[in-house]
């Protein structure tokens, strides 16, 4: 903020037409635009991973806005705790839940989107008229004095937490412990059947319907060894289970029939070529 104020002071004596303190204004308009874009992307993007990335963008821009408003500590905590830890947890759970967990676009309640849109517009209008009517033009006291009282923003927040808000701080520790224990209890799974022995596992592996050895690796019998390219069996058919399941689920595996045709063409061409070459070498000898 000092830097921003300094920029503002420079701007005041600088080129004509630039109003004082325009550094903060520029920061605000850039970050606010990006934050709203991120928020809209969170709501509108179809895949949950895209939503997570969009909301991380919103959070980082909000951190910049916090720092522009003299809240250095909160800006840093926003980046480290929210964008770093909480969003990482979200992405981690997305990984557990699976890549095919994209939202269905079918409306399950009739007219819900329309009503939600109406509620959105109405709520936003209510908030905006309330804020602008009641609070526009309110005096801005600024945090310079409050921040310098104890030597800095972090020190000031620390003094407040350990004096006036000590009880809330202690209750927070109880909340955090409860949350940690609760998460462990919720995700803990009791073992309801005995652990299988090596012999039992081996018998199961050779039972009918299971696969005793490794699955075929993708692409090695074909021309291309990309992971999305199914392997070809010696009889020319395509080994479906050579493509990893996530790729098959997402529909990223390549078309097997097309591939077989292409491969047969290539083999025929290649065979003809080798025959020609053999003839050629035989003639020259």
């Amino acid at each position, binding site marked *: 903020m000092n830097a921003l104020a300094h920029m503002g002071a420079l701007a005041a004596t600088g080129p004509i037409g630039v109003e004082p303190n325009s550094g903060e204004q520029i920061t605000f308009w850039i970050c606010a635009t990006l934050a709203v874009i991120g928020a809209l992307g969170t709501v509108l993007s179809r895949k949950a991973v895209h939503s997570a990335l969009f909301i991380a963008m919103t959070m980082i821009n909000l951190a910049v806005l916090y720092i522009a408003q003299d809240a250095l500590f909160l800006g840093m905590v926003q980046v480290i705790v929210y964008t770093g830890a909480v969003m990482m947890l979200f992405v981690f759970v997305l990984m557990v*839940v699976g890549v095919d967990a994209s939202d269905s676009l079918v409306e399950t309640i009739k007219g819900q989107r329309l009503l939600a849109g109406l509620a959105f517009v109405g709520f936003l209008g209510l908030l905006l008229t309330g804020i602008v009517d009641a609070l526009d033009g309110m005096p801005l006291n600024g945090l310079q004095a409050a921040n310098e009282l104890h030597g800095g923003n972090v020190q000031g927040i620390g003094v407040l937490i350990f004096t006036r808000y000590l009880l809330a701080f202690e209750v927070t520790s109880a909340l955090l412990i409860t949350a940690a224990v609760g998460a462990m209890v919720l995700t803990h799974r009791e073992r309801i059947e005995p652990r299988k022995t090596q012999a039992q596992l081996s018998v199961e592996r050779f039972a009918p319907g299971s696969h005793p050895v490794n699955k075929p690796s993708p692409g090695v019998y074909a021309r291309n060894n990309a992971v999305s390219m199914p392997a070809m069996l010696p009889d020319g058919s395509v080994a479906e289970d050579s493509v990893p399941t996530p790729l098959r689920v997402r529909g990223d595996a390549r078309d097997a029939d097309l591939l077989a045709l292409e491969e047969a063409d290539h083999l025929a061409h290649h065979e003809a070529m080798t025959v020609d070459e053999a003839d050629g070498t035989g003639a020259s000898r």
Partner: protein
Amino acid sequence: MNPTNYLVLSAILFSIGAGGVLVRRNAIVVFMCIELMLNASNLAFVTFARVNGALDGQVVAFFVMVVAAAEVVVGLAIIVTIFRTRNSASVDEPNLLKL
């Protein structure tokens, strides 16, 4: 700079988050929208701290962050548990308590 701008941004982000909670079906995305609403309210707290010239608003925003972190941990644990039993992360699926 007029602090009302920050409050308007906060209101917009909060409304978008609320709309997302209403519209989306995936429980994890609903959770992200709740985080968005909490972030928007934090921005309002920080702005009011600056308007009043006191750090109390920032302390409250800090507590909101702590509560949000705890809420995310428990909520995601619930989502994982439901996903294990129902094999779905959609908020439409778990209707076991319905009459």
